[in-house]
């Protein structure tokens, strides 16, 4: 018997050995570093980062790395298993003592490690963002970890699909479609879903009777505040709280929401990630369907032209803190997707084959 990790590591080592001997991979890495450099320089100039701190640089670089990572990862992983089958090397591995589980997990780890190289190449740029200041160590650590996990999920989906779909080109394309569905499709589903499921808000407005005021706009002495009858108006409002799960499944949202929120003294987020997190968490809450604006009551409380003042509405920080951390939901969805894809590939690649899909082959 060959130990699980020993056999799996053989596959990882074999896969990596073959990748690093190809030129394509180095070219890709070079292009990646070049693009990140350009983006970093442009963001530094655009946000005047030398003066205002590196928060914007950092979050932009993280998002850009995620973008490129999700674009590169399907190409690195989407033909892992069916590519070997086409090359005739899959069956020769399967007749050895290496099990199918070791093969699938090994292929996934190799694809993940390759994609992580891109993350490692981007670390200097992230450090640059940190050096400019105003980024907390925890934000950096969490962003990197979540970024690594997200890239791993894409790699798992790619390897999984390569075990399920017979033709390499097709499985790479489907992996790209999954990435697109997660990155853009979730936004579309969120927007359309929220807009389609609307509720009606009943808004009651109790106005002061301005006609009854004296010439200087004050209440005549000794009188009560003159009020008009309540006016109820109705208007539709989108129900984001029904569809916020879609938004949570967006990898960019996961990365943004996972980084610990930092807020200023007014309870407003300090960086781009914070604003996204607050927006996503705000969407979890059902809108108030019975709103009342009682001008009269305000008048009584605060005097003429008074208003609710600070403390009435929630600050972004308060919204953030009373909501479910959506990154946890999103990341769980992703990890389940990735694990499911790998499990499916394992089942479909297991030998001896009992049921063979039409058009597929063994060796």
């Amino acid at each position, binding site marked *: 018997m*060959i130990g699980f990790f020993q056999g799996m590591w053989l596959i990882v080592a074999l896969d990596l*050995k073959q990748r690093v001997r190809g030129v394509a991979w180095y070219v890709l890495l070079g292009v990646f570093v070049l693009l990140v450099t350009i983006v970093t320089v442009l963001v530094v100039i655009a946000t005047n980062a030398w003066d205002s701190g590196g928060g914007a640089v950092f979050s932009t670089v993280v998002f850009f790395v995620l973008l490129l990572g999700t674009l590169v990862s399907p190409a690195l992983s989407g033909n892992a298993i069916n590519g070997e089958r086409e*090359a*005739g090397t899959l069956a020769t591995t399967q007749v050895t003592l290496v099990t199918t589980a070791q093969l699938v997990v090994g292929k996934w780890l190799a694809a993940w490690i390759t994609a992580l190289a891109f993350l490692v190449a981007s670390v200097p740029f992230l450090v640059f963002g940190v050096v400019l200041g105003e980024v907390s160590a925890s934000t950096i650590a969490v962003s990197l970890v979540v970024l690594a996990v997200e890239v791993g999920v894409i790699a798992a989906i790619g390897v999984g699909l390569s075990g399920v779909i017979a033709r390499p080109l097709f499985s790479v394309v489907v992996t790209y479609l999954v990435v697109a569905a997660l990155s853009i499709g979730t936004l579309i589903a969120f927007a359309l879903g929220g807009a389609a499921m609307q509720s009606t808000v009943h808004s009651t407005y109790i106005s002061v009777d301005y006609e009854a005021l004296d010439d200087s706009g004050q209440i005549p002495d000794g009188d009560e505040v003159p009020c008009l009858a309540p006016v109820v108006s109705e208007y539709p409002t989108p129900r984001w709280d029904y569809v916020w799960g879609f938004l949570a499944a967006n990898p960019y949202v996961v990365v943004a929401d996972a980084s610990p929120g930092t807020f200023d003294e007014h309870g407003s987020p300090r960086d781009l990630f914070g604003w996204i997190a607050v927006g996503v968490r705000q969407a979890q809450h059902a809108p108030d369907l019975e709103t009342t604006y009682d001008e009269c009551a305000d008048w009584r409380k605060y005097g003429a032209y008074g208003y609710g003042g600070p403390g009435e509405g929630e600050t972004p920080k308060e919204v953030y803190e009373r909501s479910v951390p959506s990154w946890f939901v999103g990341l769980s969805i992703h990890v389940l997707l990735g694990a499911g894809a790998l499990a499916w590939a394992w089942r479909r690649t297991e*030998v*001896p084959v009992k049921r063979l899909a039409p058009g597929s082959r*063994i060796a």
Partner: protein
Amino acid sequence: MAGITVTGVARSFGEVHAVRDASFEVAPGSVAGLIGPNGAGKTTLLLMLATLLAPDAGTIRIAGYDPVTEPHQVRRRMGWMPDVLGSWPTLSVRAALTTSARMYGMGADEASARAQQLVELVDLVPLAEQATRVLSRGQKQRLSLARALVHDPEVLLLDEPASGLDPAARAELRELVRRLAGEGKTILVSSHVLAELEEMADSAVYLAAGATAAPEEVARAGRSARHWRIRSLDAERLVSALGDAGFGEVAVVDRFGAVVPLTSEPDAAQLLAHLIGSGVPVSSFAPAVGDLEHVFHDLNRAGDDA
């Protein structure tokens, strides 16, 4: 019996019945040829023996183990050389063999020692450090054979091992196969080159349209009339002597001599004695095709007639 035992095996792919009914045995220490026309199901049968494909019906035992329920035990003891030439393109020959050895659970040192032995065995020493993608078809074939041997298996399944090999490499393959059988290994070789199998196989499994021929069928086919090629230094005397013996009608005469259908070996002996007795200078007197080929054609004809 260890070795290979196949009983009533069938496998279909949707509507296509690749293997309908295959039964045969190969004893340890012997070489069996797997013979059949293209599309007869040879590769499908070998995939089932190699633990890659599960049969729909029937049982298989490789070295005493069932490839479906105990694939791990089978893989330990079975070496498979596929008909498709697959090799990790960027790895060197030596690295490919070392990796294969490690996949069978050998330690790093043991694996590289084994790789060195195999590189020598299949004559790839000058190419050992070359990437496998630069190998020619025949060299890849030898690498593939080496990989099948990497864990010193007791059962060997070779799918078209000789294709792409030059005559010298074919002779070496033949010697190697005989030597391995001599060491007590069970070997099943599929090939189209029947003359070649003739020289290395102890027995033959005939597969036609997914079914193995029954032993009695094979025996009958072996007894049926076959062609003998006769060469003589004096063609005219040969033709007249054949006419005297009553073969004037059926003998086909060409510039190499004559081809005569004969039912049995005693008939052949009798005709030869007659020719010599008539003073024909016979330089060669032999079956026009080998035993395997003769049976192969005969069974195929029978299959077509049916």
